């Protein structure tokens, strides 16, 4: 299938001379139509720059951004503005017009496109229904909570009937419950309208909850890219490991003895393994650190355990773990 958005060998350098910052280096990412694609990375990794390059709010220094195979970087100003209507964006700080009511905020993109006032208002009311805030039509942004503002921003983003929705830290300013409801709304929009969603975040939980695939961005480069379960259960890059289990990136000393890392990919629950290990082998291991999440009784994430110093016993443990379905294990020290 042709990707709906394809970023090809994209580089972005800010400033010049001594103050030069290479925010993105040779980034290539292909996003398929209809998927929810996550881009995760630490603060300063270049996530915002990357997403802003997609609709050319930021001009790439090098590389291409293809939308349905068409290179946006080559477009004239007017053509670019037409394409931008098909690629909507929502922001961490919502960016609503403070002097307009919710309804008029949602009408704004329609106004830009020359839709009549009457039609725009009708469409805006429908969108208010979709985001669940029909009673807030005449409220000004100052009268809304963060979650409500983001809902209005989403309605506004949907007004132009976009094919792609870019979300730059859209839930980072919200509390966990509100984050949850906004993510559910995004998921619903993706499912019901087939809109491709690209989510930028520094929170693993956001990616886990709704993304199909994820790219890990590290210091301006793509460290790895793949299905969310496989990347999170078994990160192959150092950046991926750091993200998945930050506390486990802490160095252990020689005194801690040999250590194994177990990755759970959602096909097993974590408790029985360590227990059955003790039962079946008569060997006790201790958990050095764990960053696992239990979703519907299935474990995702990683765990570090200390291995017996005796090499025969160690072998037994490793074999036991490796033979267990749903986990992968490797000796890390």
């Amino acid at each position, binding site marked *: 299938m042709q990707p709906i958005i394809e970023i090809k060998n994209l580089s972005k350098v800010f400033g010049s001379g001594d103050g030069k910052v290479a925010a993105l280096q040779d980034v290539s990412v292909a996003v398929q139509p209809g998927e929810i694609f996550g881009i995760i990375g630490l603060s300063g990794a270049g996530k915002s720059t990357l997403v802003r390059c997609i609709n050319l709010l930021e001009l790439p220094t090098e590389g291409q951004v293809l939308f349905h195979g068409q290179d946006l970087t080559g477009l004239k100003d007017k053509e670019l503005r037409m394409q*931008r209507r098909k690629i909507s964006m929502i922001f961490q700080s919502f960016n609503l017009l403070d002097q307009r009511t919710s309804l008029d905020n949602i009408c704004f993109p329609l106004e830009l496109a020359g839709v009549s006032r009457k039609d725009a208002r009708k469409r805006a009311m429908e969108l208010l229904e979709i985001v669940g805030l029909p009673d807030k039509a005449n409220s000004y942004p100052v009268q809304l909570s963060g979650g409500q503002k983001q809902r209005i921003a989403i309605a506004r983003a949907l007004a132009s009937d976009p094919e792609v929705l870019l979300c730059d830290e859209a839930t980072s300013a919200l509390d966990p419950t509100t984050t949850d409801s906004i993510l559910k709304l995004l998921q619903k929009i993706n499912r019901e309208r087939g809109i491709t969603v690209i989510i930028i975040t520094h929170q693993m939980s956001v990616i886990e909850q709704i993304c199909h695939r994820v790219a890990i961005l590290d210091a301006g480069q793509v460290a790895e890219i793949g299905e969310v379960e496989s990347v999170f259960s078994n990160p192959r890059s150092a950046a991926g490991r750091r993200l998945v289990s930050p506390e486990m990136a802490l160095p252990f000393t020689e005194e801690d003895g040999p250590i194994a890392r177990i990755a759970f990919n959602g096909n097993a629950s974590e408790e029985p393994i360590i227990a059955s290990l003790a039962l079946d082998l008569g060997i006790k291991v201790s958990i050095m650190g764990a960053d696992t999440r239990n979703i519907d009784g299935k474990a995702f994430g990683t765990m570090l355990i200390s291995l017996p110093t005796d090499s025969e016993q160690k072998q037994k443990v490793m074999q036991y773990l490796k033979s267990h379905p749903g986990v992968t294990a490797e000796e890390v020290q």
Partner: protein
Amino acid sequence: MFDLFSDPVKVAQQMEIIFSEYGFAIWETMYALVLEVIFAYVVGLPLGVLLVTGEKEGIRPMPGWMMKTLNIVINLLRSVPFLILMIIVLPLSKIIVGTKVGTPATIPPMVIAAFPLVARMVESSLREVNHGVIEASQSMGASTWQIVTKVLLPEALPSLISGGTITVGTILGYGAMAGIIGGGGLGKMAINYGYYNFKYLVMWAAVIGLIILVQIFQSVGTKLAQASDKRLRNRN
């Protein structure tokens, strides 16, 4: 100058002047003010917009030399004392309005003195607009013109109104000085009768009139600015 009421004859004489000329003076002051404010904004508002949109990081960057020249001209006009500017510009009045005396003659110098102030005021109001909102509009495909007319100006409206209030106050003050070159109104009344003819009662009446006008404009302006600001909570 403060012994206003000791001579009944003089008082009566001055009261007569006040009664017969005060109304007209206010009218002249207002009519000059309205024209000056309109022209100052006709020139200053677009320039203020340009100062924001045309800069290097603006939404429609203009050539550097152009922005630099604009800034220098505005700073220059802002730094010349009004009285001097008025005298320098007066010959221009002859060309534009056909006369070097009277109220119409004071309008061109006043506009030239006031538009740089307006431009700076508009500039600073527009700079207060959250950059994220501008980006959001760009992401929706807004053109430069649409951003200016639908985002920058409406979002900055309360601040623009406050700026307008300051402009009106300043122009009223300039207008009083324009009395020196024959510009009519309360300023002329104060200078002609008070300063040149020792009719201090008339002078004070004119000065108090100006003070009251400034107060009225200030409170109306502040009210309008607040009323237009949808960011203020708990309003109906």
